[in-house]
Protein backbone atom coordinates (compact mmCIF):
# COMPACT_ATOMS: atom_id res chain seq x y z
CA UNK A 1 0.00 0.00 0.00
CA UNK A 2 1.37 3.40 -0.93
CA UNK A 3 1.74 6.04 1.74
CA UNK A 4 -0.46 9.11 1.49
CA UNK A 5 1.20 12.37 0.48
CA UNK A 6 0.45 13.78 3.92
CA UNK A 7 2.47 11.01 5.60
CA UNK A 8 5.39 11.48 3.22
CA UNK A 9 5.31 15.23 3.77
CA UNK A 10 5.42 14.67 7.52
CA UNK A 11 8.45 12.40 7.17
CA UNK A 12 10.21 14.73 4.73
CA UNK A 13 9.71 17.62 7.17
CA UNK A 14 11.85 15.63 9.59
CA UNK A 15 14.57 15.23 6.96
CA UNK A 16 13.66 11.72 5.77
CA UNK A 17 15.43 11.42 2.40
CA UNK A 18 13.47 8.32 1.35
CA UNK A 19 10.18 10.13 1.89
CA UNK A 20 11.39 13.08 -0.16
CA UNK A 21 12.55 10.73 -2.94
CA UNK A 22 9.10 9.17 -3.03
CA UNK A 23 7.48 12.61 -3.22
CA UNK A 24 9.75 13.51 -6.14
CA UNK A 25 9.10 10.20 -7.90
CA UNK A 26 5.35 10.59 -7.45
CA UNK A 27 4.98 14.21 -8.55
CA UNK A 28 7.85 14.81 -10.94
CA UNK A 29 5.89 14.09 -14.13
CA UNK A 30 2.98 16.33 -13.18
CA UNK A 31 5.41 19.05 -12.16
CA UNK A 32 7.11 18.68 -15.53
CA UNK A 33 3.76 18.92 -17.36
CA UNK A 34 2.87 22.13 -15.51
CA UNK A 35 6.33 23.61 -16.12
CA UNK A 36 6.25 22.68 -19.80
CA UNK A 37 2.81 24.25 -20.22
CA UNK A 38 4.39 27.59 -19.26
CA UNK A 39 7.94 27.51 -20.61
CA UNK A 40 7.26 25.29 -23.68
CA UNK A 41 10.80 23.96 -23.72
CA UNK A 42 11.69 20.58 -22.21
CA UNK A 43 15.15 21.62 -20.97
CA UNK A 44 13.73 24.72 -19.30
CA UNK A 45 10.90 22.66 -17.84
CA UNK A 46 13.47 20.33 -16.27
CA UNK A 47 15.28 23.30 -14.68
CA UNK A 48 11.99 24.59 -13.34
CA UNK A 49 11.10 21.18 -11.91
CA UNK A 50 14.44 20.99 -10.11
CA UNK A 51 14.15 24.47 -8.63
CA UNK A 52 10.53 23.95 -7.68
CA UNK A 53 11.20 20.77 -5.71
CA UNK A 54 14.05 22.39 -3.80
CA UNK A 55 11.93 25.46 -3.10
CA UNK A 56 9.05 23.23 -1.97
CA UNK A 57 11.35 21.33 0.40
CA UNK A 58 12.61 24.56 1.93
CA UNK A 59 9.05 25.78 2.48
CA UNK A 60 7.56 22.41 3.41
CA UNK A 61 6.50 23.59 6.87
CA UNK A 62 4.05 26.06 5.33
CA UNK A 63 2.25 23.42 3.26
CA UNK A 64 -1.05 21.81 4.19
CA UNK A 65 0.02 18.14 3.87
CA UNK A 66 -3.28 16.81 2.50
CA UNK A 67 -3.22 19.48 -0.24
CA UNK A 68 0.41 18.90 -1.16
CA UNK A 69 -0.05 18.28 -4.90
CA UNK A 70 -1.99 21.51 -5.49
CA UNK A 71 0.54 23.43 -3.38
CA UNK A 72 3.49 21.98 -5.29
CA UNK A 73 1.89 22.74 -8.66
CA UNK A 74 1.46 26.38 -7.60
CA UNK A 75 5.17 26.56 -6.80
CA UNK A 76 6.03 24.95 -10.15
CA UNK A 77 3.76 27.36 -12.05
CA UNK A 78 5.19 30.43 -10.31
CA UNK A 79 8.74 29.24 -10.89
CA UNK A 80 7.96 28.52 -14.53
CA UNK A 81 6.45 31.98 -15.04
CA UNK A 82 9.56 33.64 -13.54
CA UNK A 83 11.82 31.42 -15.62
CA UNK A 84 9.84 32.17 -18.78
CA UNK A 85 10.05 35.93 -18.18
CA UNK A 86 13.80 35.73 -17.72
CA UNK A 87 14.03 33.54 -20.80
CA UNK A 88 12.14 36.03 -22.91
CA UNK A 89 14.58 38.72 -21.89
CA UNK A 90 17.40 36.50 -23.17
CA UNK A 91 15.68 35.55 -26.42
CA UNK A 92 18.91 35.39 -28.34
CA UNK A 93 19.89 32.17 -26.54
CA UNK A 94 19.65 29.10 -28.77
CA UNK A 95 16.97 26.45 -28.16
CA UNK A 96 19.04 23.48 -27.12
CA UNK A 97 16.29 21.03 -26.21
CA UNK A 98 15.37 19.67 -29.64
CA UNK A 99 18.73 18.07 -30.13
CA UNK A 100 19.61 17.35 -26.53
CA UNK A 101 16.57 15.36 -25.38
CA UNK A 102 17.50 12.06 -26.94
CA UNK A 103 17.75 8.51 -25.74
CA UNK A 104 20.86 7.87 -27.84
CA UNK A 105 19.78 4.35 -28.85
CA UNK A 106 18.31 5.21 -32.22
CA UNK A 107 19.31 8.59 -33.66
CA UNK A 108 16.66 8.42 -36.43
CA UNK A 109 13.86 7.68 -33.94
CA UNK A 110 15.19 10.43 -31.71
CA UNK A 111 15.10 12.86 -34.58
CA UNK A 112 11.53 11.88 -35.50
CA UNK A 113 10.48 12.28 -31.91
CA UNK A 114 12.18 15.66 -31.70
CA UNK A 115 10.25 16.80 -34.80
CA UNK A 116 6.95 15.56 -33.37
CA UNK A 117 7.73 17.27 -30.11
CA UNK A 118 8.48 20.49 -31.90
CA UNK A 119 5.23 20.32 -33.88
CA UNK A 120 3.16 19.64 -30.77
CA UNK A 121 4.76 22.50 -28.90
CA UNK A 122 4.23 24.85 -31.83
CA UNK A 123 0.59 23.77 -31.96
CA UNK A 124 0.15 24.43 -28.24
CA UNK A 125 2.00 27.72 -28.19
CA UNK A 126 -0.93 30.02 -29.09
CA UNK A 127 -3.15 28.47 -26.40
CA UNK A 128 -3.65 30.23 -23.06
CA UNK A 129 -1.33 28.76 -20.42
CA UNK A 130 -4.28 27.39 -18.45
CA UNK A 131 -5.49 25.39 -21.49
CA UNK A 132 -2.02 24.00 -22.06
CA UNK A 133 -1.76 23.04 -18.40
CA UNK A 134 -5.08 21.20 -18.42
CA UNK A 135 -4.23 19.50 -21.71
CA UNK A 136 -0.82 18.29 -20.52
CA UNK A 137 -2.02 17.16 -17.11
CA UNK A 138 -4.85 15.19 -18.68
CA UNK A 139 -3.53 13.85 -21.97
CA UNK A 140 0.13 13.50 -21.07
CA UNK A 141 0.10 12.92 -17.35
CA UNK A 142 -3.22 11.06 -17.16
CA UNK A 143 -4.76 13.09 -14.36
CA UNK A 144 -8.54 12.96 -13.99
CA UNK A 145 -10.77 16.00 -14.40
CA UNK A 146 -11.44 16.04 -10.66
CA UNK A 147 -7.73 15.92 -9.80
CA UNK A 148 -6.96 18.75 -12.22
CA UNK A 149 -9.83 20.78 -10.80
CA UNK A 150 -8.50 20.33 -7.26
CA UNK A 151 -4.95 21.23 -8.25
CA UNK A 152 -5.87 24.25 -10.34
CA UNK A 153 -8.85 25.46 -8.33
CA UNK A 154 -11.32 24.87 -11.18
CA UNK A 155 -14.73 23.21 -11.29
CA UNK A 156 -14.78 19.82 -12.96
CA UNK A 157 -17.08 21.10 -15.71
CA UNK A 158 -14.71 23.97 -16.41
CA UNK A 159 -11.82 21.53 -16.66
CA UNK A 160 -13.75 19.45 -19.21
CA UNK A 161 -14.60 22.49 -21.29
CA UNK A 162 -11.05 23.87 -21.10
CA UNK A 163 -9.69 20.50 -22.18
CA UNK A 164 -12.16 20.34 -25.06
CA UNK A 165 -11.11 23.81 -26.26
CA UNK A 166 -7.42 22.99 -25.96
CA UNK A 167 -7.72 19.74 -27.92
CA UNK A 168 -9.75 21.39 -30.65
CA UNK A 169 -7.24 24.24 -31.00
CA UNK A 170 -4.26 21.87 -31.16
CA UNK A 171 -5.99 19.59 -33.68
CA UNK A 172 -6.92 22.54 -35.86
CA UNK A 173 -3.41 23.87 -35.73
CA UNK A 174 -1.83 20.49 -36.48
CA UNK A 175 -4.28 20.10 -39.38
CA UNK A 176 -3.39 23.56 -40.60
CA UNK A 177 0.30 22.67 -40.44
CA UNK A 178 -0.34 19.48 -42.45
CA UNK A 179 -2.25 21.41 -45.13
CA UNK A 180 0.44 24.09 -45.28
CA UNK A 181 3.19 21.51 -45.69
CA UNK A 182 1.26 19.71 -48.42
CA UNK A 183 0.77 22.99 -50.27
CA UNK A 184 4.46 23.83 -49.97
CA UNK A 185 5.61 20.46 -51.34
Amino acid sequence: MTEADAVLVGRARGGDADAFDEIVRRHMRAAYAVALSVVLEPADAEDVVQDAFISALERLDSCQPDRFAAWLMRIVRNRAISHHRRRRVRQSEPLEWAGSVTSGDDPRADLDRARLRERLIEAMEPLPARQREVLLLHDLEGWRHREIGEALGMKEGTVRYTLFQARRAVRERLGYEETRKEEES
Partner: protein
Amino acid sequence: MKDERLDLSPLDPVQDELRWRRLAARIRERAMPELARRAGREGVLGTLGHWAWPTAAAAALVALMSGSALALIRPPEVMAHVVQAFDLEAPVSVWLLEDRAPTTDDLALALERDR
Protein backbone atom coordinates in the same frame (compact mmCIF):
# COMPACT_ATOMS: atom_id res chain seq x y z
CA MET B 1 -16.74 17.27 -32.94
CA LYS B 2 -14.48 14.48 -31.71
CA ASP B 3 -12.85 15.00 -28.35
CA GLU B 4 -10.49 12.08 -27.96
CA ARG B 5 -7.26 12.18 -26.03
CA LEU B 6 -4.41 13.71 -27.99
CA ASP B 7 -1.29 11.63 -28.39
CA LEU B 8 1.25 13.73 -26.54
CA SER B 9 3.70 10.88 -26.04
CA PRO B 10 6.50 12.70 -27.92
CA LEU B 11 6.41 15.17 -25.01
CA ASP B 12 6.67 12.41 -22.41
CA PRO B 13 9.91 13.10 -20.53
CA VAL B 14 10.23 9.49 -19.36
CA GLN B 15 10.86 8.36 -22.94
CA ASP B 16 14.42 9.36 -22.25
CA GLU B 17 14.69 7.31 -19.11
CA LEU B 18 18.34 7.99 -18.42
CA ARG B 19 17.85 11.75 -18.66
CA TRP B 20 14.80 11.50 -16.41
CA ARG B 21 16.71 9.49 -13.80
CA ARG B 22 19.53 12.03 -13.91
CA LEU B 23 17.04 14.81 -13.28
CA ALA B 24 15.68 12.95 -10.23
CA ALA B 25 19.24 12.38 -9.02
CA ARG B 26 20.07 16.08 -9.39
CA ILE B 27 17.01 17.02 -7.35
CA ARG B 28 18.01 14.50 -4.68
CA GLU B 29 21.55 15.85 -4.60
CA ARG B 30 20.43 19.45 -4.30
CA ALA B 31 17.96 18.48 -1.57
CA MET B 32 20.58 16.83 0.65
CA PRO B 33 21.72 19.96 2.58
CA GLU B 34 18.15 20.91 3.42
CA LEU B 35 17.23 17.34 4.37
CA ALA B 36 20.34 17.13 6.57
CA ARG B 37 19.43 20.42 8.22
CA ARG B 38 15.93 19.15 8.89
CA ALA B 39 17.20 15.81 10.19
CA GLY B 40 19.64 17.66 12.49
CA ARG B 41 16.94 19.93 13.84
CA GLU B 42 14.69 16.95 14.39
CA GLY B 43 17.63 15.19 16.07
CA VAL B 44 18.22 17.95 18.64
CA LEU B 45 14.53 18.33 19.40
CA GLY B 46 14.10 14.56 19.47
CA THR B 47 17.01 14.13 21.87
CA LEU B 48 15.66 16.84 24.13
CA GLY B 49 12.25 15.26 23.89
CA HIS B 50 13.61 11.85 24.76
CA TRP B 51 15.48 13.26 27.75
CA ALA B 52 12.76 15.58 28.95
CA TRP B 53 10.12 13.01 29.80
CA PRO B 54 12.24 10.53 31.77
CA THR B 55 13.96 13.43 33.55
CA ALA B 56 10.65 15.02 34.48
CA ALA B 57 9.27 11.65 35.60
CA ALA B 58 12.36 10.97 37.73
CA ALA B 59 12.17 14.46 39.27
CA ALA B 60 8.49 13.93 40.09
CA LEU B 61 9.28 10.57 41.70
CA VAL B 62 12.09 12.05 43.79
CA ALA B 63 9.84 14.91 44.90
CA LEU B 64 7.08 12.47 45.84
CA MET B 65 9.43 10.25 47.82
CA SER B 66 11.05 13.23 49.59
CA GLY B 67 7.67 14.68 50.50
CA SER B 68 6.46 11.35 51.83
CA ALA B 69 9.64 10.86 53.82
CA LEU B 70 9.44 14.36 55.31
CA ALA B 71 5.78 13.88 56.16
CA LEU B 72 6.62 10.63 57.93
CA ILE B 73 9.60 11.87 59.94
CA ARG B 74 8.60 15.48 60.58
CA PRO B 75 6.65 15.37 63.90
CA PRO B 76 8.88 13.30 66.11
CA GLU B 77 12.36 13.97 64.78
CA VAL B 78 12.60 17.05 62.55
CA MET B 79 10.50 19.29 64.77
CA ALA B 80 12.39 18.19 67.88
CA HIS B 81 15.63 19.14 66.13
CA VAL B 82 14.16 22.48 65.09
CA VAL B 83 13.03 23.27 68.66
CA GLN B 84 16.41 22.23 69.99
CA ALA B 85 18.46 24.06 67.35
CA PHE B 86 16.62 27.37 67.81
CA ASP B 87 16.31 26.92 71.57
CA LEU B 88 12.61 27.63 71.39
CA GLU B 89 10.64 27.82 74.55
CA ALA B 90 7.02 27.02 75.32
CA PRO B 91 4.47 27.72 74.06
CA VAL B 92 6.10 27.97 70.58
CA SER B 93 7.94 24.67 71.05
CA VAL B 94 4.67 23.01 72.05
CA TRP B 95 2.86 24.29 68.99
CA LEU B 96 5.65 23.02 66.73
CA LEU B 97 5.90 19.62 68.42
CA GLU B 98 2.13 19.25 68.26
CA ASP B 99 2.25 20.43 64.65
CA ARG B 100 -0.59 22.88 65.00
CA ALA B 101 -1.25 26.58 64.66
CA PRO B 102 -1.76 28.57 67.87
CA THR B 103 -5.36 29.28 68.85
CA THR B 104 -6.61 32.64 70.14
CA ASP B 105 -6.53 31.24 73.67
CA ASP B 106 -2.90 30.13 73.22
CA LEU B 107 -1.91 33.60 72.10
CA ALA B 108 -3.82 35.28 74.97
CA LEU B 109 -2.17 32.91 77.44
CA ALA B 110 1.29 33.59 75.99
CA LEU B 111 0.80 37.34 76.25
CA GLU B 112 -0.54 36.98 79.80
CA ARG B 113 2.56 35.01 80.76
CA ASP B 114 4.95 37.65 79.32
CA ARG B 115 3.47 40.39 81.43
